């Protein structure tokens, strides 16, 4: 039995109300599904990364989460409450930093804050003013005279001042140079330390994500391929080097990716480490997998075979062996 194409979805340890939960969420554009069967959970306080290539369905998912797009099927719950598109209540509960940091170019920073106060149900003017002062951005300066990095900082400040418990960022650093990118992420990580907010960061840049996120969602071809706590997902995967003749059925766990050489094969398996120790052979070598290897392997996996019904997601068949819980 081949399980290739089945998503791997891990649940968090604690049973609290998740910050975000989507249930069999789907959106169809004409005859084409932009996203299908998307069931994910992000616990409160997490910094979650949503990874996928362009066209994977990231923006479709984000727009349904922030309430700008009505799902074709399924639903979105933010802190246990169902979201409905284009309602003030839904929009107030989710902060959003868009990819291109849309601000009015002829407005000053103070004008932008004035607009933010007028357009949001809740607004923390003190937080907004204190943040830009700390970042050295003058309140009276026009947006057009700010650097790209400063515009990104103002966008983030406005999203934070909205006081929404869930903050969604769509490719927040893709338009920034490396220094501005680092400064933005530094500022974001400090903001995360200061608050009890939950972050969902969409990105197509896989490198370095390991530093920023503790929760991972891999999206490809409109389907969730991998989701769960980043450390658990890394712990559940091993890179095996085995003789070429070894059949998939002899390997412990599920084969995610297999590369055959003349005499040996390199196989990424999703497996219980204990099972591997029992079932492993003397000639096998098992190495831990890097974050980037893991994400790339799942991004390149074939899509589920039956498009309409990929079946139940693969559930963790063994208890969590974590010594430290979140």
């Amino acid at each position, binding site marked *: 039995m081949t399980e290739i194409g089945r998503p791997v979805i891990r649940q968090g340890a604690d049973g609290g109300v998740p910050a975000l939960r989507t249930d069999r969420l789907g959106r169809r554009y004409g005859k084409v599904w932009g996203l299908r069967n998307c069931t994910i959970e992000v616990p409160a306080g997490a*910094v979650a990364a949503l990874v996928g290539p362009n066209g994977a369905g990231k923006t479709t998912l984000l727009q349904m989460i922030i309430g700008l797009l009505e799902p074709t099927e399924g639903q979105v719950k933010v802190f246990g409450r169902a979201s409905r598109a284009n309602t003030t209540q839904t929009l107030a509960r989710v902060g959003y930093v868009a990819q291109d940091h849309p601000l009015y170019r002829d407005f000053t920073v103070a004008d932008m804050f004035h607009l933010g106060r007028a357009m949001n149900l809740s607004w923390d003017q003190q937080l907004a003013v204190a943040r830009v002062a700390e970042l050295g951005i003058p309140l009276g300066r026009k947006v057009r005279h700010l650097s790209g990095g400063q515009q990104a900082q103002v966008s983030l400040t406005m999203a934070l001042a909205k006081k929404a418990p869930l903050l969604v960022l769509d490719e927040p650093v893709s338009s920034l140079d490396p220094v501005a990118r680092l400064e933005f992420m530094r500022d974001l*990580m*400090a903001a995360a*330390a200061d608050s009890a907010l939950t972050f969902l960061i969409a990105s197509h840049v896989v490198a370095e994500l390991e*530093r920023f*996120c503790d929760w991972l969602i891999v999206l490809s071809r409109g389907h969730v391929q991998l989701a769960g706590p980043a*450390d658990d997902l890394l712990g559940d995967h091993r890179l095996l080097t085995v003789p070429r003749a070894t059949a998939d059925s002899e390997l412990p766990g599920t084969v995610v990716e297999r590369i055959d050489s003349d005499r040996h094969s390199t196989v990424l398996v999703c497996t219980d480490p204990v099972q591997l120790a029992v079932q492993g052979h003397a000639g096998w070598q098992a190495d831990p997998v*890097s974050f980037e290897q893991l994400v790339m392997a799942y991004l390149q996996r074939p899509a589920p075979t039956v498009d309409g019904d990929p079946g139940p997601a693969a559930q963790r068949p063994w208890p969590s062996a974590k*010594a430290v819980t979140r």
Partner: protein
Amino acid sequence: MFRFRLDGSSGVPPYLQLVHQVRQALLLGYLQEGDRLPTVKDVAADLVINPNTVVKAYRQLEHERLAGGRPGQGTFITAAAAPVRPEAQDLRDSLEAWLRAANEAGLDEAAVTALIAVARRDLSKERERAR
């Protein structure tokens, strides 16, 4: 104040890297009982990493009784530095002798690393079977 660093290419999860650095600093005497560790926010901003990672590392240190949180004050080192045992020097001498022998036998860096990895794996398998 103690400062952490992060090696992005080591393959060791970031939270474990932080834990290892405290353990190592304790062994070398760079950290002593009563020293305050930097705040979660300072480490997150300094290394540009997820604050939850720092929280996880500090919890692990508390679990190992190497550090403890004092409400409103921060996280402090609670363990006394382990004195270097006399065996350590002997072990270091014999390791140096072994490395010299490996060098004379014509083994390069990669071969030495591979040999050490294989020996470690065999030992851990031995321990696994003994359990």
